[in-house]
């Protein structure tokens, strides 16, 4: 009897354990899958994207991928608050998968963008360098306005900064500096080109004046002087043939013809040597006074005054000379043409009073000048 009772107790215990085991197995098999694998993959993808600087090169994509990751975590947290059998991690998993896809794509694009920006920066910096070379060659000797010069200078400094940033791998700041450099150099170049374009609108007149003067020299078998402002030379022609060339220095604002006293411009047009001075007659070693202002100058002066383009109290000015004291390497006169003393010595002996002097902007075209 006792044996049967123990058997039943043992049987019941085994039965209960069996039921518990089956119950536990059933319970665990109904537990939803947690999103930890997917979230881990998304996190790894995000870390890779950040390492590739996706936050900088594709910020929107990176932000989106991060937001999807945060949503996956939030949803996981939310589901964890529920009773264990009511949890559903499918949303969290889908957020995590989307985050991983986005982060992977962001990383890929960031790498491409970074490489593109890097190579593009190098190209743009090279092209700005070339632009600077052109500016140096074509415009640096021109009396461009102070603000143009300053803008150009700022552009050069920005390019230097861009190079420093490029060397330190800071490509986005480099890109910013390159843009600033480009815009400053473009502005300076455009302004200087504009000045030159404006100046060269007189080119046909200069050609005409030059031809007339050379023809005069040929037909009268005489010596004439051509002052070429752009090349800063005084050319001596006899019987229409070029005999010698001297370097000259002009008024500080030599571009454009002289309009009034004090504008520091050298006049343009046809003149003659009125008087030759030396010794105590001039403070510039030797000088040859021109018959400025001509009738054309007076007419222009009156017209411009009427238009209000020159100050009301301004006078036309006089005493424009070809004189010594030059060779300073900079345009410094108030409108006169300065030669080095040894050059004025030579010229002084070659030309008598009454010699025609034609002052023009340039003998070569603007395009030829820019190509030089």
């Amino acid at each position, binding site marked *: 009897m006792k044996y049967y009772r123990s058997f039943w107790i043992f049987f019941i*215990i085994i039965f209960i354990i069996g039921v518990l085991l089956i119950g536990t197995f059933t319970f*665990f098999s109904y*537990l939803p899958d*947690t999103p*930890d694998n997917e*979230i*881990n993959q998304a*996190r790894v993808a*995000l*870390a890779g994207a*950040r*390492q590739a600087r996706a936050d900088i090169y594709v910020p929107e994509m990176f932000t989106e991928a991060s937001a999807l*990751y945060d949503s996956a*975590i939030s949803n*996981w*947290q939310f*589901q*964890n608050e529920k009773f*264990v059998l009511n*949890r559903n*991690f499918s949303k969290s998993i889908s957020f995590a998968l989307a985050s991983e896809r986005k982060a992977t794509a962001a990383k890929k694009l960031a790498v491409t963008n970074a490489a593109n920006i890097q190579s593009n920066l190098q190209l743009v910096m090279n092209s700005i360098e070339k632009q600077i070379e052109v500016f140096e060659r074509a415009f*640096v*000797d021109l009396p461009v306005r102070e603000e143009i*010069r*300053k803008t150009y*200078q*700022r552009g*050069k*400094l920005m390019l*230097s*900064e861009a*190079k*420093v*940033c490029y060397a*330190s791998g*800071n490509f986005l*700041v480099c890109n910013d*500096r390159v843009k600033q450099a480009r815009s400053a150099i473009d502005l300076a170049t455009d302004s200087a080109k504009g000045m030159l374009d404006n100046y060269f609108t007189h080119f046909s007149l200069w050609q005409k004046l030059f031809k007339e003067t050379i023809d005069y020299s040929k037909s009268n078998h005489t010596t004439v002087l051509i002052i070429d402002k752009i090349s800063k030379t005084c050319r001596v022609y006899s019987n229409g043939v070029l005999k010698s060339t001297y*370097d000259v220095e002009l008024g500080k604002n030599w571009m454009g013809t002289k309009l009034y006293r004090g504008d520091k411009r050298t006049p343009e047009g046809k003149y003659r040597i009125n008087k030759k001075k030396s010794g105590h007659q001039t403070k510039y070693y030797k000088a040859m006074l021109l018959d400025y202002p001509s009738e054309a100058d007076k007419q222009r002066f009156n017209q411009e005054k009427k238009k209000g383009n020159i100050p009301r109290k301004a006078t036309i000015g006089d005493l424009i000379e070809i004189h010594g004291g030059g*060779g*300073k*390497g*900079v345009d410094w006169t108030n409108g006169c043409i300065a030669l*080095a003393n040894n050059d004025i010595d030579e010229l002084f002996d070659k030309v008598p009073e009454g010699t025609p002097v034609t002052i023009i902007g340039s003998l070569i075209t603007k395009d030829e000048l820019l190509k030089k």
Partner: protein
Amino acid sequence: MKNRMLTVFAMMAMVVFMAGCAKVPQMEIDNAKAAVEDARAAGADLYQQAQFGAVQDSLKVALANVEKQKSKLFSRYGAVKVQLEGVKTLAMQVKESTLVRINEIKQEIQTTMTEVTALIEENKTLLTKAPKGKEGREALEQIKTDMTGIETSVTDAQNMLNTGDLLGTLDKIKAAKEKSMGINAELKAAIEKSQAGKKRK
């Protein structure tokens, strides 16, 4: 016998109940998060980007592990606590190294600024000695404009430094230094050339 078995069952149930109700290590989580924010506030995201990225990633791992434990029927937070402590320590180290880096940059800026200022002064002296003949004068005018630009750049750098933009300041002042060194070399070469010419005469 029956009583003994019931006691065993009761104890097992207690253990299961206790294990299932392990507490989320909220203090450790808060501490780790605060340490990461501290590092960010110190400028780690700017001056120690790679290290700060690693810290952020570690925090993400730890927080994901917290959720993983929460999802389990029997949560165990021992390992997560250790992880969170690790994040906190790492974040503090990153903060420290950020402060060191900031000091280094500040020092570099200061040294470069002093060098640039000295170069500007030296260049001004050299300008007075440079040859002023034909073309020389024009070039000197150019150099003067360049030098004015550099001085403006130094002032800009000082202003940037005052706003706390250390990396921007460093780039600016380094560029100013390079430009000043270029001018210095150009002036010295011109002076040397002109002195050599005088000696030949």
